[in-house]
C-alpha cells in the first residue's frame, strides 16, 4: 500500500484490483485455470455484492462472466438466464445514468442489446434497439437510423457466430448452481425488478412548487 503525506497507508486502485479479497479477480484466476465451476460461484457472488452496493456495471460484468462460465460447461439454459439478467442490469444502468452521461447510456444499451440477443430475447433486444437509435439520433441530427445502428448490427453478427460455435450438452445442472442462481435472481428482482420505480424523473418532483407559485400569481 502507498503512504500519504502524513505517513498513513492508503489503498490505491491498484491495491483494490489486485487484492486477494477481490472476488472478481479470484474468479478470473479460476477461470483462467479452467476451473469454470468454481469461477462461476465467485462471479455470481461478486455480482450479488455489487448489486447490493448499486454498482451496476460491475454487477453486469460479473453476471456476464458467470454466464460465460456456464456456457463453457455447456449449461446453456442457465447461461441464457444469466445473460438475460446481465442485459436487464445494463439496460437499467442506461436508463438511470441518462441524466449524467448520455454516452454511458448509449454504451449500456449496446451491451444490453448484445446480451438480450445472447439470451434469445429478440423482443427485448428490439426495445433497446429503439431506445438506442432514438438517443443516438438525438445526439447527432445528421445521423440516419442505418448509421446509428451499424455498430449494433455488427455486434449482433458476432453473437450469431458465437452461438453457431456452441455445442449443446446434456450435463445435469448441479443443485449448487441452481441454488446460487436462485439467490442471485432474487437479488436482481428485489433491487432492480421494478425499473421504472428507480428511473423516476428526479427533476419534476419540484414542479408542484412551481405550479402552486404560478397559481398564486394568477
Amino acid at each position, binding site marked *: 500500500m502507498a503512504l500519504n503525506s502524513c505517513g498513513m497507508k492508503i489503498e490505491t486502485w491498484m491495491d483494490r484490483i489486485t487484492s486477494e479479497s477481490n472476488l472478481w479477480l479470484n474468479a478470473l484466476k479460476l477461470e483462467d485455470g479452467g476451473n469454470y465451476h468454481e469461477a462461476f460461484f465467485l462471479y455470481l457472488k461478486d455480482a450479488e455484492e455489487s448489486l447490493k452496493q448499486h454498482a451496476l456495471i460491475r454487477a453486469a460484468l460479473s453476471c456476464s462472466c458467470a454466464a460465460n462460465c456456464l456456457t463453457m460447461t455447456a449449461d446453456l439454459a442457465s447461461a441464457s438466464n444469466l445473460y438475460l439478467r446481465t442485459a436487464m442490469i445494463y439496460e437499467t444502468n442506461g*436508463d438511470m445514468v*441518462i*441524466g*449524467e*452521461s*448520455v454516452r454511458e447510456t448509449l454504451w449500456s444499451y449496446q451491451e444490453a442489446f448484445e446480451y438480450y440477443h445472447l439470451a434469445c430475447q429478440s423482443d427485448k433486444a428490439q426495445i433497446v434497439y429503439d431506445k438506442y437509435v*432514438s*438517443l443516438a*439520433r*438525438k*445526439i447527432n*441530427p*445528421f445521423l440516419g437510423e442505418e448509421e446509428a445502428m451499424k455498430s449494433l448490427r455488427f455486434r449482433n453478427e458476432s453473437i450469431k457466430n458465437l452461438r453457431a460455435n456452441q455445442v449443446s450438452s446434456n450435463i445435469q445442472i448441479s443443485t449448487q448452481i441452481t441454488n446460487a442462481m436462485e439467490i442471485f435472481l432474487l437479488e436482481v428482482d428485489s433491487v432492480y425488478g421494478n425499473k421504472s420505480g428507480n*428511473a423516476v*424523473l*428526479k*427533476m*419534476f418532483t*419540484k*414542479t408542484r412548487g*412551481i*405550479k402552486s407559485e*404560478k*397559481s398564486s*400569481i*394568477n
Partner: protein
Amino acid sequence: MGSNLKKVLLINWDCYPNFASGGVYTWTKTLIDNMHDYEFVVINELSNSNSNNRYSIPPNVTKTIEVPIFGSNRLEEFSKENKTLLPKILRTTESVIHNIFFPLYREFLSNILSDRCNTKHLADLVIKLHKFLIKYDSKKCLEHYQNWDIFIDELNKHHLYSHMTIKEALTAFQLIQRNISLFSIEVPKVDIIHCSLAWLPSLIAVYAKMESNCPVVITEHGVAFRELLLYYNAYLFDEPSKIFWKVFSHNIVRTIYSITDLITPVCHANRIWEEGLGANPSKIKVIYNGVDTSKFRPIETKRENNRPTVVSVARIDVFKDIVCLIQAINYVRQRIQNVQCLIYGASSDLEYSLRCLKTLQHLRLEDHVKFMGSTKEPEKAYNAADVIAISSITEGFPFTVIEAMACGKAVVTPDVGGVREALEGCGLLVRSRRPNELAEGIIKLLEDNKLRKQFETAALKRVRDEFTLSKCVEQFRNEYANLINSYGTKYPEDSLSEKKRESELANGVAQ
C-alpha cells in the same frame, strides 16, 4: 407608392430596421434599397429591449411590424392599427381554453419535442394555432397556469428530457410560449415571403404562405442551426438540455425548409449544412452577397502614422473571436515591434468585451491594439490598412471579406463557412482559434510586399467579376419574378367572410 408593385413580406430577427449592424442588416438594407420595383412589408422579431425604434426607411418599405417577445403586453397592443382587443379577450373563456386551446397546444408540443417531427403536421398545427389566436386572446391562453403542467407532461414523455434542470425547462417553456404568441400576428396579403433565417420567427411564413398562396424564399447567412449549436455548446452545461435544444431546433429548421420554395444560402458551405439538415437539394440555389463597388474601392486615405497597420472590421462578439486576434497581434509584435491593429465594430456582448480588454491589458498591448467602435465609413477603415485580419470561428459569406477585397486589400482569415469561396487565391486562409497561425499570416503579408500586391490586385478583380451588388440584386429580382409567376394569380378571395373564416377555424381545430 404605386399599387401595381409586387409585395414582399420580409421576416427577420433582431435586425432591419431596428438593429443597424452586422452582415444580415447590410444584406437586407442593400436588397431593399436596390429593389424599388418591389414594395416591402418588414417583420422584425425583437428579443432585445434595447432595440432602436428611431430609424429611417425608404419609401418602398410600406409597413414595419415590430414584434417584441419580451415584456408582458399583448402583441396587439403594439399594433398601430385601430383594432379593439376587448372582444377577443371576452371571447376567450375558460371553456375555450380547455376545449380548443389546450388540445392544440399539447399536440404542438408533442410534435415539436419529438425526435424527428412530421414537418407537414407541425406546419398544419402552426396554421391551426394562428387561426385560433387571431380570434382568441393569446395572453389569456398562453399565460394559463395549466400550460406549465402540459409542458412538463410532454417533456416527461422523453426519459432524457426529464433530467433537464428546472432552469433550462423554464427557459424552454418561456421561449416556446413567447414564440407561439407570434402566431397571433395578422400579416398582410403579399406576393412573396422572404425570410433572412430559418429559425422561430420564420414560422410566421408558414401561415402567411397559406393565407397569400405565395412562394417562400429563405436566405441563410450563417445557418441558424449551426450557430445555435455553437451557442448551446458555449452556454449550456448539462447534456439533456443541449440535446433538447438540438432536437427542438432541428424540428423548427426542418419545418421551415419544408414549406420553402427556394433556399438561397450565401455560400456553398451553407448549402452542405442545409442539405444535411434535410432541405431538398433541388430547392437550393447559392446567391453570393454583393458589395457596392462604387463605395468600396481603393481610395487615398490619410493615415495618422506610418506604422504597419492591421485592420479588422467585426463586432466585439464571441463568434468573432476578438481574443484570438489580440493574441495574434501579441505574436506579431514580437517580430514587427511597431505594428498596430485597429478593430472597428460595436460591442454586442458586454461580458465578452470586458474579456477582450482584460486580455489586452494582460498582454500589455494597449499601444498596439485599439478598439475604434463602430464606423459609418468602413471603406475608409479598410483603405487605411496594410492588411485586413479576421478571426471569426463561424461565418457565412462575410461582407467584411468582400468589402476589404473591393478596397484592394490583402486579407488573412480563418477558413470557416464560405470564406474560402470568397477569398480563393486572393488572401491567406488559416485555421480558426489558432492565434499563432493568424499571426504568421499577418507577418507574411506585412513583410512580403510582392505577395501582398499580388493578392491586392487579384482581390480587386475577383470582387468586380463575381461579387458585385448589382449581380446579387439581379439574381434575387429574377428569382422573385420566376417564383411569383410560378404561383400565378393569387390572393384567394381577399374578402373572406368572417363566417367562412369561423367555419375554417372550427374545421381546423376539429381535425
